[in-house]
């Protein structure tokens, strides 16, 4: 009996550990197939880490859609940067249970993470202003000024 159990666990181990990374679209469209199963999902952390006691919510965007990941707050501490304007968030790989309709979270489609791994650190992006924008702004400003002066002059002339 023990031999059978050992053999079964040996067979199952690679299946669990080598779960392929699933895309958000695949998870949403074929939610019933993945429901309750352990999956791997990878993407950029966006917004912020929302701490809710021992656990936290993070939203992970894989380039198509973002999915909420329920993670232990101590694991969430690994995340240093999250994606927003002029900031690329840390890219993480999540391994956890996918829920099509999570009973714990009001029926949300989410992932309960067992472990997360930062695969690529986020970075801040230097904001660049294209020179053409500056030129156009100046150009419009000058034209507007001239038209405004003409408008006021015309009003004054009409009044007289």
């Amino acid at each position, binding site marked *: 009996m023990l031999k059978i159990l050992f053999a079964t666990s040996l067979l199952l181990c690679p299946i669990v550990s080598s779960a392929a990374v699933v895309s958000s679209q695949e998870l*949403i469209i074929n939610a019933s197939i993945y429901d309750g199963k352990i999956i791997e999902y990878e993407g950029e952390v966006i*917004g*912020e880490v929302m*701490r809710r006691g021992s656990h936290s919510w993070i939203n992970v965007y894989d380039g198509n859609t973002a999915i*909420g990941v329920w993670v232990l707050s101590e694991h969430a501490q690994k995340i240093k940067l999250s994606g*927003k*304007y002029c900031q690329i968030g840390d890219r993480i790989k999540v391994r956890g249970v996918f829920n099509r309709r999570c009973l714990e979270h*009001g029926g*949300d489609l989410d992932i309960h993470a067992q472990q997360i791994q930062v695969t690529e650190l986020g970075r801040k992006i230097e904001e660049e202003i294209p020179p053409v924008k500056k030129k156009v702004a100046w150009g*419009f400003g000058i034209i507007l000024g001239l038209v405004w002066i003409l408008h006021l002059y015309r009003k004054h002339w009409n009044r007289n």
Partner: protein
Amino acid sequence: MILKPHIEDLQLISFYLGKVTIGLALAMAIPLVFAVILGEFSPAYDFLISTELALLIGVLLTFNKSTLTTLSWMHGMIVVSLSWLLATLIGAIPLYLSGHWLSYLDACFDAMSGFATTGLTLVTDVDHLSYAHNLWRHLMMFIGGQGIVIIAVSLFVSGLSGAFTMYVGEGREEKIFPNVAHTGRFIWLVSLVFLCLGTFALTVCGICEGMEPFRAFFHGLCIFMAAFDTGGFSPQSQNILYYHSVAFELITVVIMIIGAMNFKLHYHLWTANVSEITKDIETRTFFFSVLITFFIVAMGLVNQGVFTKPALLFRKGFYQLISGHTGTGYQTVYAKEFVKQWGDLASIGVLAAMTLGGAICSTTGAIKMARLGIIWKALVQDIKRIIFPERAIIVQKFHHVKEIFLEDKLVRSALMITMAYFLLYCLGALIGMFYGYGFLESLFESVSAAANVGLSCGITSPNMPVGLKLTYIIQMWAGRLEFMSVFTLVGFVYAAIRGK
């Protein structure tokens, strides 16, 4: 004989268009200042260019006229319909300059969606969009919800006798005060008071749910503007799903319902005349239509085995239903889930709610509760006529601010607008099917655009055909203005071409 419009007509129309454009330029200065304060300099340039261009167009349009002449119905209607198109073209400029929209048409789509408080969006990578651009997206909803032209009128013009034509042109039929400018200011007062209260509630909720204080405030402000004006934009791509918070969902439900209420009822609420709300035909119709459509949605979801537990059924099913019924379009499920998992019956329940909308003189789109109530009363009256003896005098009344006798004129007007909406829904659905989408999907998205809802079953995306983008833009425009001003514009253009 059709008369060709005179040059004076064009000058008058252009003068008011100019005023509206200057008003829009001032509105764009808000995100400009916001961008400078936050140090978002590239977005600041986007708004600087757009503000300058809007001012330039505004000044040029007002160049030929400097006196206020009374507006006729035709002028007022044309000013309104053209103002919305011009606002869309100008409002799209900062969006396009941000680089988050693939084409200028996509930016125009979002600008029209914003002003018409629809909520369908073609933005890409919204999660990395600047605060200033996000503020503008939501501000467009706030401005559009109150009415672009009525804002300009209440700010720049006082004592204008033709203002009522523009007020009606923007899909409002009822005045709160005899003066339209005063009505416009009251609508603003109500909106600003609720803005403070709603933003505060959402900010506190956001902070409690683990958001950073500034982001909680910014999201609270944006979400309030979009929920109160029954718009549906959100600063994050996941929409309301981003927050994972039942409290946040509850607050937005309350804001959506308040936004769907008639401003006239708000006035009664402010004057502590609460009984008026329960007596009103719109409130009663809204209550029953929510009840019936929720029953359909619940049956569909239980049948499909999607949400069998009451708590989940209520949290997901009721939220989507209220969001659709009020024409907001906030989602706590992914767009694809509608089609793939909710099943036909639940989708039809939401679809039915979407076609109906909220109250007249509110920020919602679609057929609206008063018309539905009037049609129902007319049906009851006709049934009574059949059942009762021929000599019996059947009188049907309804309460809307005061007791009103049901007249054929009222019924005809309600039926005409309802029919126009259904035609618009069908037209969009046919075009959707022409591009190869399924019947239910095409109808769902078409209703969502024409009724200014914003719920999506996945068709609306930057990759959808150009023809469909244009169709939805026209649907959002005509649906928001309730047809009359759009028809007048068509007539005006026809007269300009064929008139003598």
